[in-house]
């Protein structure tokens, strides 16, 4: 019997095309308002309504309605502007129509077999491809870390295109074999693209590893600072009696100026020269002291202001990425600037972390952008990484490029 087999292939293809629409929504909506399973339920109902309407009623208007309305309702599960919801629903629907149209046109030239074409198998695959491409494009724009070579992407394209060709050759009739083939081919596509996501994750892990290696450098520096401080303290403790004796003598002789100078010297010895901050957040202290010591070595004039609790709501990792990149950027700019000045402030107020970093720089448009892009390729990091870390805390970044200073301000919210 043709009917149920035909239907089965239609159902599987429709499920896959709805999955493709879901992939597409990732370009438009990111924040979920409801639990994951609610959304799954939403899509399940969408699938049932849409397939049911198509199979039972064969009414074009009903088909359109059952495609648009449930899909729009699902968008209510995400936190976005109303206008984005309309835009997304209509765009994705239009893309579906477009794929249909394209496949129809291609079918004029290339003889697709009936099964592949009228069941919507080919259309679903093409829509899936377009959805993934759109997804990758929007990710590439927002996150420099997640970037795989173009060759990987092209190789991946081979799978869906190959699937359509194989289906065309293999699926001659509406029989059990065709159902099997449809399921397997579509399954392979889902698996392959899933693997791609895993690959991306591996790349991210590799990037993280680099950050940890960097952190080790900061710790090494901090240990040096601590050793220095220890040595200074020992020196003071041993000679404390002598120092006090000398100070007392100066006091008795009313040599107040000399005494003031001597006291100042002692106070300075108590603090190692390169320790700029000591907030109690060891990772942060390490990183900032290290970076600022590099700036100091360059001869920069440095001012720091911190008002931070010992326990920050920002993870050590995110702080490292954030401050590491911001300071690297600043150091890079200072290198090529004759008058070096670096101001850093980190404040915690009203449960908001407020970071400001200001540095002098030479304002040469073309050169600066090229240098930043090169840096990005070298480490895969840069301001884009900062943006990612910032968005983890619903935060915002503002950059001011005035004639003398380059100022970056970052706000991080607790939730």
């Amino acid at each position: 019997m043709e009917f149920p087999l035909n239907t089965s292939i239609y159902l599987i293809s429709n499920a896959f095309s709805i999955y493709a629409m879901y992939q597409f929504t990732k370009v438009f909506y990111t924040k979920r308002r409801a639990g994951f399973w609610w959304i799954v339920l939403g899509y399940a109902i969408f699938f049932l309504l849409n397939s049911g309407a198509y199979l039972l009623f064969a009414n074009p208007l009903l088909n359109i309605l059952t495609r648009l309305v449930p899909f729009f309702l699902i968008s209510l599960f995400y936190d976005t502007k109303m206008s984005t919801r309309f835009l997304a629903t209509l765009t994705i629907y239009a893309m579906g129509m477009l794929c249909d149209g394209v496949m129809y046109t291609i079918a004029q030239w290339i003889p697709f077999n009936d099964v592949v074409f009228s069941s919507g198998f080919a259309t679903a695959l093409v829509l899936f491809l377009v959805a993934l491409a759109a997804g990758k494009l929007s990710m590439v724009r927002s996150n420099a870390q997640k970037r795989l070579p173009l060759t990987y992407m092209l190789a991946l394209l081979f799978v869906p295109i190959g699937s359509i060709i194989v289906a065309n050759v293999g699926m001659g009739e509406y029989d059990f074999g065709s159902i099997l083939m449809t399921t397997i081919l579509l399954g392979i596509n889902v698996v392959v693209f899933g693997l791609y996501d895993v690959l991306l994750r591996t790349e991210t892990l590799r990037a993280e590893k680099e950050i940890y290696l960097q952190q080790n450098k900061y710790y090494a520096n901090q240990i040096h600072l601590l050793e220095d401080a220890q040595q200074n303290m020992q020196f003071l403790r041993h000679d404390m009696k002598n120092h006090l004796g000398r100070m007392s003598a100066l006091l008795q002789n009313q040599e107040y100026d000399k005494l003031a100078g001597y006291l100042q010297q002692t106070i300075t010895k108590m603090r190692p020269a390169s320790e700029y901050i000591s907030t109690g957040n060891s990772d942060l202290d390490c990183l900032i002291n290290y970076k600022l010591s590099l700036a100091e070595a360059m001869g920069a004039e440095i001012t720091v202001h911190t008002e931070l609790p010992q326990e920050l709501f920002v993870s050590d990792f995110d702080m490292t990425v954030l401050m590491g990149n911001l300071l690297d950027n600043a150091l890079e700019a200072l290198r090529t600037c004759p008058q070096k000045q670096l101001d850093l402030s980190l404040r915690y107020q009203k449960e908001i972390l407020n970071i400001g970093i200001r540095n002098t720089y030479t304002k040469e448009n073309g050169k600066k952008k090229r240098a930043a892009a090169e840096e990005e390729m070298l480490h895969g990091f840069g301001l884009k990484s900062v943006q990612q870390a910032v968005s983890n805390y619903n935060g915002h970044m503002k950059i001011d490029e005035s004639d003398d200073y380059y100022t970056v301000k970052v706000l991080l919210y607790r939730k």
Partner: protein
Amino acid sequence: MLCVAVMDDDIVFCTQFEKMLQRYGEANEIKITADIYFSGAAMLQALKDGALYDILFLDIEMQQPNGVAVGRYIRETMQNEALQIVYVSGKTQYAMELFQVRPFWFLEKPTEDASLSACMTQYQDRFAGYHTYLYYTISKTEYRIALQDVLYLESKGRKILIHTRGELITFYGRLDLVCSRLAVEQMIRIHKSFAVNPQYVVSCYSNSLYLSDGTALSISRKYRKEVRSSLFAGDIMI
């Protein structure tokens, strides 16, 4: 004129600090009166007796009740957000409880003239205009209320409700007009129906904020950018 109180059990420090305040006052032509307290208990008693100050310099490392306890009394019991607190400490490592008192500044010991100067200048810049008023009319009579006492404004229909620490005042008006007459640093619009006094905001999140009396208000999408800009405003070294 500025009324200042210094609380520290170290007599030497208090004397030095008082002299620094005088130097600042002379250099900037401001009259500063400083009251010294050697214990938390004395400070608390003075506050209970109704002593009024603009800024308090409180030591953290001293016997209980210390600066943190006094700060908590001011914010939680007295419900006062207008009184500015500066914590003075020999350490740079601060516990979270200090931030819950919403201090205005932190000073390190030993304190230098430059650091005190930066702190006082900041205070002047931010709070100099703070004795402004919100004017409103009820039945053809004009009234005014110090902005310092206003927590937030709410618009309901054609009326505006002024939420203060004590009472609730209602008058006919439009929120747009009222806010336009006030500086954005004094009253920030966060919603079609709400505008808040930043001084009374104890915690601010991306979509919502909490005021000192526990009220939670949501920041509508339309005003999020504005709220953010106000948080971004100002020199970073301040």
